[in-house]
């Protein structure tokens, strides 16, 4: 919804939020339901109601628990019945510098301040520990914004007695904790308040009158920033950029002006702005965002523009280059299909408002931010939070290479008559075995973002996955696939729960980048052999239909399971007696965890 996309009109959102909510809820899209406990050190009502709008717009339908006024610490340490039974999926601790219990005074010695810092930090740490032990869910914690005044003036930041200094040191302690603790995310209000304007943000009227720790009109900025973390934790980030070229990645029109005359590099201010923007995009790639081109151009000209010696981005940086005269929505749909991702996980970046309109009208859920003036490009993309980083795995670093290898594989496929010959020619090697700590983060990440090849679409937080990993009641498998073009990383996960001599499949997912490689058969072979070792005779599979997982509707059927139940909504239950099971994979060499050493 355009009203909720960055840069948004905060006053409009605050005024119209009731009707915005009505519109969002009436669009009949299916959303992930999540329970969010907001433990506040100041008033949170309007924050929650605006956060709800952003989350609805991002595909999450939240229900909230809110602490009584300023009861965050009590609620975390000694939750009441309501909070206990609420069982949050995520806890958001909304504290600000107003909640710091003691600040240094001018007569304090350095060791007094040191103690003060430790005890303040401990107060927070106790709370985080209590929350994570009880609820086993992710925590979002605000850092502290800078204070309303500086008692010592400029020295307030550098002297150990200064409040500004104290706050900065406390923030550093929060960051250290967050670096060593998974499932713990800092909501950077220090940055957001500075960017908004600290003077306005801290308008004392709102604190004194309503006990809001920020001014009323800043609430949307704050709520949006927080909602971005939530949606990223629950796997709703975007995955790829589809970039226009002329007047988006460089100034001018390469087809008209010639590659030597486009604006990119260090010559002029405009050229430098495009250079900065290209550098920003290149850095996104290093974070695991997939880059593609979507431009109305002859391909030859597009490539010539990208080969400009002063440019940062080269043709090789892109997985797919669509430079043709087709409609852009067609090209984006094609790109999504080629990458095996949903069109709605693409961000379309184009300076032309007409192109953005067409794409948005044709492809539901695609993002097309308003790119208005090259000097604003970076901020617009950056603040939109499309790719908000909450976990960062090895695979993210390699993603572009993996997808590029995929496109090469597709090119090879065309030259084989027999599909099995082609698969054999790929020299595929897999590691399929019980989870190992090294991959647990990636496994959790997959459970939260696989939509298509996923029979139950069951989501796991990092803490829940740790529990599964630690328990004797499950048979767990992850699968990692390598071939002659590269390492695909961990691409498949299966979790089954043992009950008597039957294994019930809780989760069976696979990344779409390895579709049609027989990887699912290799997984099944190993699963059956693990079952045999543990005296299990029957495997029961479950399929729950969603808008996106129809490709695995008959997966268990393909495996040779019998359908034993089906209800009105299309949920099916399948069963396989493994006594006479014969291995189905003949193209992948399978190894166990010992091969990782």
């Amino acid at each position, binding site marked *: 919804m355009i009203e909720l996309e960055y840069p948004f009109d905060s*006053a409009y959102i*605050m*005024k*119209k939020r*009731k*009707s915005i909510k*009505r519109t969002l809820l009436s669009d009949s899209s299916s959303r992930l339901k999540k329970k969010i406990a907001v433990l506040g050190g100041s008033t949170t*009502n*309007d924050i929650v109601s605006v956060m709800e709008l952003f989350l609805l717009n991002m595909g999450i339908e939240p229900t909230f628990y809110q602490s009584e006024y300023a009861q965050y610490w009590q609620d975390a340490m000694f939750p009441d019945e309501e909070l206990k039974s609420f069982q949050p999926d995520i806890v958001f601790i909304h504290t600000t510098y107003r909640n710091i219990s003691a600040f240094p005074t001018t007569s304090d010695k350095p060791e007094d301040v040191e103690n003060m810092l430790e005890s303040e930090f401990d107060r927070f740490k106790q709370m985080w520990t209590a929350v994570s032990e009880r609820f086993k869910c992710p925590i979002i914690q605000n850092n502290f914004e800078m204070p309303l005044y500086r008692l010592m003036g400029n020295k307030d930041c550098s002297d150990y007695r200064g409040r500004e200094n104290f706050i900065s040191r406390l923030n550093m302690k929060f960051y250290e904790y967050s670096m060593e603790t998974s499932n713990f995310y800092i909501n950077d209000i220090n940055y957001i308040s500075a960017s908004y304007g600290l003077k306005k943000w801290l308008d004392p*009227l709102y604190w*004194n*009158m*309503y006990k*809001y720790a920020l001014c*009323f*009109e800043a609430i949307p900025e704050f709520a949006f920033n927080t909602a971005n973390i939530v949606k990223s934790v629950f796997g709703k980030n975007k995955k790829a950029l589809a970039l226009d070229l002329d007047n988006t990645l460089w100034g001018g029109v390469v087809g008209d002006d010639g590659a030597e005359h486009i604006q990119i590099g260090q010559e002029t201010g405009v050229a430098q702005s495009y250079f900065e923007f290209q550098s920003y995009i290149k850095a996104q790639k290093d974070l695991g965002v997939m880059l593609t081109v979507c431009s109305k151009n002859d391909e030859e000209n597009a490539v010539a523009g990208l080969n400009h010696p002063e440019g940062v981005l080269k043709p090789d940086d892109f997985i797919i280059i669509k430079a043709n005269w087709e409609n852009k929505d067609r090209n984006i749909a094609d790109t999504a299909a080629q990458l095996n991702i949903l069109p709605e996980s693409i961000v379309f970046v184009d300076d032309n408002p007409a192109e953005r309109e067409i794409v948005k009208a044709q492809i539901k859920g695609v993002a097309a931010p308003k790119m208005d003036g090259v000097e604003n490009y970076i901020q617009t993309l950056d603040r939109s939070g499309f790719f908000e980083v909450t976990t960062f795995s090895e695979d993210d670093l390699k993603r572009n290479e993996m997808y590029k290898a995929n496109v090469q594989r597709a090119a090879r496929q065309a030259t084989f008559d027999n599909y099995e010959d082609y698969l054999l020619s790929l020299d595929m090697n897999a590691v399929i075995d019980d989870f190992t700590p090294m991959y647990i983060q990636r496994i959790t990440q997959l459970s939260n973002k696989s939509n298509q090849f996923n029979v139950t679409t069951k989501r796991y937080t990092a803490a829940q996955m740790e529990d599964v990993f630690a328990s004797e009641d499950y048979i767990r498998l992850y699968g990692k696939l390598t071939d002659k073009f590269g390492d695909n990383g961990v691409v498949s996960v299966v979790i089954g729960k043992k009950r008597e001599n039957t294994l019930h499949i809780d989760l069976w997912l696979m990344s779409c980048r390895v579709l049609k490689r027989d990887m699912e058969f290799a997984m099944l072979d190993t699963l059956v052999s693990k079952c045999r070792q543990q005296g299990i005779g029957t495997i029961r599979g479950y399929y729950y239909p969603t808008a996106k997982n129809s490709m695995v509707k008959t997966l268990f059927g393909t495996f040779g399971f019998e359908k034993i139940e089906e209800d009105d909504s299309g949920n099916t239950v399948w069963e396989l007696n493994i006594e006479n099971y014969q291995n189905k994979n003949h193209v992948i060499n399978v190894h166990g965890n010992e091969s990782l050493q």
Partner: protein
Amino acid sequence: MTEEEIYEKLNEIFQDVFDDETIEVDELTTADDIDDWDSLEHINLVAAVEKEFGIKFKMGEVSTMKDVGEMVEIIMERI
């Protein structure tokens, strides 16, 4: 801006904030006349009025305004 024009704008703001197109305010309208007008919505309302007319209420005024008439008087003084 005439008093009449101010009331016209106020009606729009009230309708947006309380999401009810039937609301018509006059000088005697108070929080008791509108169901959802509690202390929380009051902040929202005040912020929307300030924004629309480009004015700021003083801290004391926000809590002591007793009806819409008083609000309009303050608006007339400041615009």
